[in-house]
Structures are given as C-alpha cells and as structure tokens.
C-alpha cells in the first residue's frame, strides 16, 4: 500500500503540473480563433456582421445549451445502462446533433476554421472523459486497487501515444476524415456488441455463468478478500526512467519551441527501455501473476493513440485488452486503467489546448455535465424494465446506423443511410 501511495502521489504531481496550464490557454486560444475568424472574413467565408455562434464565431451555429443538456441526459442514460457506448454518443452529439460537423465541413479541407472546429470537438469530448477519469481513479485509489507496475507500463505507452497522435494529426485531419475514422470505431464497437447478442455469444455467456456458479460456494466463504497486491519481481529503476523519459518527451513536445525530433527520440527511448524491464511478477489474492512489461506498454500506445485521435476515453479498450490479451484479473486492470485514461487525456488535452491553442466553450461543457448526471439517475430506474439483451440489441442497431453513416459521409462525401 505504501508503494501504491508513493506512486499515486508521484502521478498526481505529474497530473497537477500538466493540468494547471490547461486553464491558461485563453491567450493563445483567443489568438488562434481570432486569426481563423480574420482569415474567414478576408476570404469572404465568414460574414463579419452575422450573429456570433459557437465559440463566438460570426455566423457559426448557435449551439443550444438546452439541446446539449438534453443530449447529455441521453448520454448519461447510456453510460449508466450499457456503459462505454455513452462516450461514442457524446461524440455524435458534438459532430452531428449540434450542427458543428456540417458547419466546419463548409469551409473545405485544410481551412483554418475547419481545423479549429474539428479540434475543438475532439477536446470537448476529451474534457468529458478526462473529468470522469479523475473521479474514477480517485475512487479506485481509495479502494486500494491501483497496481503500480501495471500502471507505469501502461502510462509509458499511453503518455507517448497521447501526445504523438495529436501532434501528428492536429490540424492535418479534416472534419470529413475525422468523421470517417470515428465511424469505423463505432462500427467495430457495434460488431463486438452484435457478437455478444448472437446465439453463440449467448451460449458462451451461459457457460461462463455456469462456471461462475460452480465456484459460488468458495466465493461465499470469502476469507481472502483483504489480500492486496504484492510485487515479487520487476525492475522499478528502469520503469521509472522509461516513464520519466516519455513524460519528458510530452513536455518537450508541448513546451519547447523547436527540436521536435528530440521529443520523438525521447518517446522512442522510453518505449525501447520498457523491453529491458523484463517480466513483472506479483501475487494478488494469494495467486501469482506475471506479465511482460512491454505488453501493457504496447497496448498503452495503441489505445491512447486511438483514444486521443478520436477524442474518446480509452478505458473501454484498456480493460478488455488487459483481461483478454494479458490474461490479468479484472480488478488489477480496472483500477489502474482509470488512472492511465486520466493521465493520457490530460496529456492529450494539454497538447491540443496549450500546444495547438484549440479553444473550448466552458458553459457548454458545464451544461453537458449536468445532463450526464441526471441521465445517470434515470438509467438505473429504467434498466430494470428493459432486459440487458434488448438494450444491447438497441445499441447494435444504433452503432451500425451511426457507423455506416459516418464512414460513408466521411470517405464518400454522402451518407448511404437517411438523412442523406
């Protein structure tokens, strides 16, 4: 526990250092925004006299706070009934429902206002995810379920991935392409959900429940529930160095004016170092576990990259990755991944807001948060009337619809499902 505490304090300090400048972004954001507005006016794409809308841009859609609030209730309802799909729905709201997607697209590929609005949508999603990660990681710390070496290896990959992707793609991806990639992610999630609703998926689930029932007696005996994690083997020094190097790469990339190659080199060095950490062995509930340090590191890179690119949390990917691929018990993964999501999102938001000067509309995020927690109170009350399988089927249909619509809109330029 003492080691966990030290690790937690260290991470919180890093988080604090990274988080505080996020709120300082106003001067550089304002400049980027006014530059983009000026260019729009000069090119005749923005009418100077039009009424200001989203982010104060003249002629931009006036995002209704009431609509944002109502949509967020829907998002909160999904979060509290089905889970991960809520993050996707938050993204759908920002892109489609509030009319920001079509507005940004009108400026054409590569145009500054298109890039600014696209990045603002991503950052708005990330704020929602990051704030949630903050609370959930605090809860898991209280429950004593943060596993330091696992968290460090994930973070080594995740921190690098979450600054590299925004750095390589911010301003280079048009909203059209972003929508297409977002659609692919939604469709993949829909396919995963669909597999669970098929006969084979249901049979598998039934078998698992039978197996669980077989171990029910021992479960009732309890007895060993107080046993925590005990680390037996693992190179702490190398892990700390590797983590320090990738955090330095993120800071260098965001704060230093030039010499980007050094940031790339540092991230690469951190990742390579993890291969030399070797195997980590620990006991949990009296059972011994081991994993190669580079496995969560590689997972961390891929997941954080995807999460920060799409502006959604990686939590829904971290947990299945580590339980299915690395074969670790759910509790070890669950508590730790919340913290990694938080660190990853902070680095990513930092990269966008401070590094790239992307603005967000605070009042709107506030209205959305209110909607989400109201939705989370409605969810438990309605879910008892709707069987789990039907909830899943509902979201399979939604995921296929949203996925196909976004993929075709993003890559073909038109939707093959209504509204066209």
């Amino acid at each position, binding site marked *: 526990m003492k080691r966990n505490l030290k690790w937690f304090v260290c991470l919180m300090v890093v988080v604090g250092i990274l988080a505080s*400048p996020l*709120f300082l972004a106003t001067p550089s954001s304002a400049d980027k925004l006014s530059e983009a507005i000026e260019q729009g006016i000069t090119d005749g794409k923005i009418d100077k006299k039009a009424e200001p809308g989203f982010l104060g841009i003249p002629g931009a859609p006036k995002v209704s706070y009431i609509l944002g609030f109502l949509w967020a209730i829907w998002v*909160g309802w999904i979060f509290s009934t089905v889970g991960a799909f809520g993050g996707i729905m938050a993204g759908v709201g920002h892109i489609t429902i509030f009319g920001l997607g079509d507005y940004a697209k009108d400026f054409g590929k590569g145009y500054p206002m298109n890039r600014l609005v696209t990045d603002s949508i991503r950052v708005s999603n990330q704020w929602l995810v990051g704030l949630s990660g903050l609370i*959930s990681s605090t809860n898991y710390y209280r429950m004593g379920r943060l596993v330091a070496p696992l968290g460090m290896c994930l973070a080594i990959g995740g921190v690098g991935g979450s600054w590299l992707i925004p750095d390589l793609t911010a301003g280079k991806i048009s909203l059209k392409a972003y929508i297409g990639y977002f659609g692919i992610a939604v469709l993949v999630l829909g396919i995963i959900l669909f597999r669970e609703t098929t006969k084979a998926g249901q049979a598998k689930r039934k078998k698992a429940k039978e197996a669980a029932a077989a171990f029910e007696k021992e479960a009732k005996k309890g007895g060993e529930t107080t046993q925590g994690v005990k680390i037996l083997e693992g190179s702490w020094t190398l892990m700390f160095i590797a983590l320090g190097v990738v955090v330095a790469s993120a800071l260098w990339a965001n704060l230093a004016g030039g010499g980007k190659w050094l940031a790339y080199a540092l991230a690469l060095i951190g990742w390579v170092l993890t291969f030399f950490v070797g195997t980590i062995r620990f006991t949990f509930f009296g059972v011994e576990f081991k994993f190669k340090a580079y496995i969560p590191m590689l997972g961390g890179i891929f997941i954080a990259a995807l999460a920060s690119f799409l502006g959604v949390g990686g939590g829904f990917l971290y947990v299945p990755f580590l339980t299915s691929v690395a*074969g670790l018990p759910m*509790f070890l993964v669950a508590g730790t991944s919340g913290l990694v999501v938080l660190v990853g999102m902070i680095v990513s938001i930092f990269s966008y807001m401070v590094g790239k000067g992307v603005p967000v509309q605070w009042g709107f995020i506030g209205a959305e948060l209110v909607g989400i927690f109201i939705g989370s109170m409605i969810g438990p009350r309605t879910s008892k009337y709707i069987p789990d399988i039907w909830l899943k089927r509902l979201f399979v249909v939604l995921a296929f619809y949203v996925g196909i619509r976004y993929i075709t809109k993003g890559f073909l330029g038109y939707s093959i499902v209504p509204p066209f």
Partner: protein
Amino acid sequence: MDFVSGFVEAIDYFLIAPYRWPGNPVIGWWTGTAVLAAWAALLGKITIALVFRVNRSYIKETVGEVDQRHTQSMNALKAGDRAAYRAINRLANEAFGKSFFLQVAMASASLWPVPCALAWLQIRFSSIQFPLAVDLPLVGHNVGASFIFIPLYILARIMLGKVKPRKGNRE
C-alpha cells in the same frame, strides 16, 4: 435569450458581490474567487451526495456483482481451472464495465460547477490579465482568471473533505 444565458445573468449579481466586499480591488479579487471556488466545491459535493443517495441500491447491486464475479474468478484460478477463470473473468469485466460507466456518469455530478464557474469567469474577466513573476513558455508573462480559480477550487475541495468525516463504506 435562452434559459442558460438568463440563468447566468441572474446569478451574476450574486457571484460578483463578494468581489465588491473589500474596498481594495486586489483583495476583492481574491475574496470573490475564493468564494466562487467554495461555492463550486460545495455545490458539487451536495449534488454528488444527492445522486449517490438516489442511486444507492443500484450502485450496491452493480458493485456487489463485480465483487462476486471477481472472487469467483480468483477461486477458479486457485483451483487451477484456467478456462473457467477466463470465462468468469470476462463476466467480471462486463459487470465492471457497467459499474464503471455508471460511476463515471455520476462523477459529473461533483464536477459540473467547475466549467460553469470557468464560463462565468470567462464572461466576466476575460479581458483581465494577471502578470506572472516569470515568463512561461507558450503562456507568456500574463495569465487568465482561471489560473487562480483552479488551485483555489482544489483547496476548497480538500478543505471540504476534511470538514465532514466520511462514514460507512464508500463503495
């Protein structure tokens, strides 16, 4: 004027009052922002307490399922049944996902006042800049109102956490 703009205008009078209490503008700034941070922390705390109360039985149920599946999977592993462990671990994973996202959604109850306060500060004080002792890269030598609000909010949260000792199981 939409409902939110109307609401912001209505509470503006209330929020700006502490800024005017002391005669000195600098002391007034610190007092007002500290009161704003205290309100944000208190409001968040009240809301999350309310949400937990409303959802208590459901949270207990979901967290209970997560715990049960976890213990079952560990028992399977201890018994050497690797296949059962993997299958039950998957169920545990699913139960955790449900419980996790429910709590994530509920977590927004404690944080919603922060962006609202930041939005109000943006409306009220966006033109005011505070000089820093050192020049920070990318930021320059001036910072906005939020720079002072956030540390004060964190301080208010810590102090509020200490005022009332927690009782019972947090889960």
